[in-house]
Structures are given as C-alpha cells and as structure tokens.
C-alpha cells in the first residue's frame, strides 16, 4: 500500500488520526477525570487560603510535635505507596502477574495505614473541641475548611484502596490486563500529588501570619 498525502495528514497527532494520543481510551478518560479533580482540589485549597487570610484568629492546632511529625509520616507513607504502585505497573507490563498483585496489595496497605493515621489525628482534634463547623477558640470556619479538604482527600484515598482491591482481584484472575493496572496507578499517583499540596498549605503553613 502506498501512503498518500491524505493518509499522512490524518495520522498526525492533530489530524484526527485513529489514535491521536497513542493511548487507550480508558487511560485518556482517567486523565480527563484527573484534570477536573485537580480543579476541585485547587478550588478547595484556595478557598481555605482565602478564609485563612480573612480570619486573623485562624486556629493553628498543628504543633511541630506531634501534628507536623504525624503529617510527615503520613506523607512518606503515601509517597512509599506511590513507589510500590510504580513497581506494580512495571511488573504488570513485564507480565509478572503474582508480583504485580503483591505490589498492588502493598499499595492498598499504604493507603490503609495513611487512613488510620489520618483518622487518629481527626479524633485527636475532635477531643480538643474541633469539629465540622466547630472550633474551641472561635472561627468555626476552620473546622469546616480543614475537615472538608482533608475529608475530601481521605475519601479519594479510601476510594483508591477499594479500587486497588478490585484491580488486584481482577488482574490476579486474568480479567484485567496491564493497561488497567496502569490506569489505576494514574489515579493513585494523583491522590499522592494532591497531598503534596495539602501538606504544606495546611500543616506546614500553620504559623502566625
């Protein structure tokens, strides 16, 4: 077959060719979802920053010890689970099914550990009088903003854990292929990425403005 000029045109990335981004549709769908989720979290974090500037008496309950140390451990755990996810995707592409499933379950384990530490921190704050729309030194907005953002992130982690278990079960039984593992990896890394902004903006910036 000769390649005519027209064929060349539609095979270029912007020519509306058969697969302009050279990825499958599931992966493309996940990327589009992640872009919209980025904006959700950006809006939440900027709302937090705005409320914080608007209230000079914004509560700062995160002392270096234990608040920031705890959040640092959570950050490292989440980063570690991202690394095991990368290993899982690499193993899946190398067709090492059992190894990939082990790494996916390890990733889910990191997520569960993160959730446990986070919920423990929440209950600690509840015992100090913080709550949804409640704060001991006034400014109840702090409670709404803090638990709103971290709750939204925790919901993402929890959905991610369930997603990992489904992928591990389906991939282990041969129902899903390596591309499905890669798509779930995209989601997991994104949850990690969001925390990389929540951690400095809420915990580390817990200083006098």
């Amino acid at each position, binding site marked *: 077959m000769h390649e005519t000029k027209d064929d060349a045109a539609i095979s270029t*990335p*912007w020519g509306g060719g058969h697969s*302009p*981004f*050279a*990825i*499958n549709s599931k992966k*493309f769908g996940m*990327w589009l979802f992640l*872009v919209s989720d*980025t*904006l959700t979290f*950006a*809006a939440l974090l*900027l709302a937090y*920053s*705005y409320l914080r*500037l*608007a209230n*000079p008496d914004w509560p700062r309950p995160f002392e*270096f010890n234990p608040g*920031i140390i705890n959040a*640092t451990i959570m*950050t*490292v755990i989440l*980063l570690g689970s*991202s*690394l095991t*996810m*990368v*290993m899982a995707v*690499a193993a899946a*592409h190398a*067709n090492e099914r059992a190894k990939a499933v082990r790494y996916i379950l390890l990733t889910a384990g990191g997520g569960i550990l993160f959730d446990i530490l986070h919920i423990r921190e929440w209950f600690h704050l509840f015992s100090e009088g913080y709550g949804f729309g409640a704060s001991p030194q006034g400014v109840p907005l702090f409670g709404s903003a803090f638990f709103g953002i971290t709750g939204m992130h925790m919901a993402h982690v929890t959905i991610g854990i369930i997603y990992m278990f489904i992928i591990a079960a389906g991939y282990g039984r041969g129902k899903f*292929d*390596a*591309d499905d593992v*890669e798509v779930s*990896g*995209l989601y997991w*890394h*994104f949850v*990690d*990425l969001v925390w*990389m*902004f929540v*951690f*400095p*903006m809420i*915990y*580390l*910036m*817990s*200083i*006098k*403005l």
Partner: protein
Amino acid sequence: MSAHGDPGEPHAAGSIRLFTIVWVWLVAITAIEVFLGYETQHFSPTFMLSLLIVLSIVKAILIVSYFMHLKYEKLSLTLLLIPSTVFCLCMILIFFFPDSLRLLQFRTH
C-alpha cells in the same frame, strides 16, 4: 501491553532504578519542606509560602512526568492536558489574588 504494538514504545522507558531515584528526590524535597516548617521564625510567612509552593510544584512535576508517565507519552497528550489545566488555575487566581490581598489591608492585628 495489548494496546501498544511496537516494541521499544513508551513503556520501555523509565527503569525501576530511575523511579527509585525520583522517589528519593521526592522524599528529600519533603524533608526540606518539613525543615522550613520547623524553622518558621527565621522566614517571613510570604517567603515561606512561596518557597513551599515552588517546592510542591517541583514535586508535582516529578510525580506527573515520571510516576504518571507523562514524559514518555506523546507530546500531544501533554499539550492537551497541561496548558488547559494551568489556564483554568490562572482563571481562579485572577480573582483570588486581588481579593485576598485586599483582605490583608483590612486587618486590625
């Protein structure tokens, strides 16, 4: 691997060793950030916030390009995803900065 036929395509790039190096960098940047959070009294809040945001953006770029593999995808995907996201974020910031800087001037203490 089913969707990609050609050998030596994107997935061949990026070894476990490279990903581990990227991970070590991510942890190191986190350590710098925590150190900044510990040494708060030496920096002004504005300087510290700017520094933290820049470091976080560096981490985000590392995660997106290596862990999320965007560096090894076709350029067309990056050009579709990144500029549109940055544009939308700028549209939020256009309203955020004037309003929040005005708030600072209303402060009594």
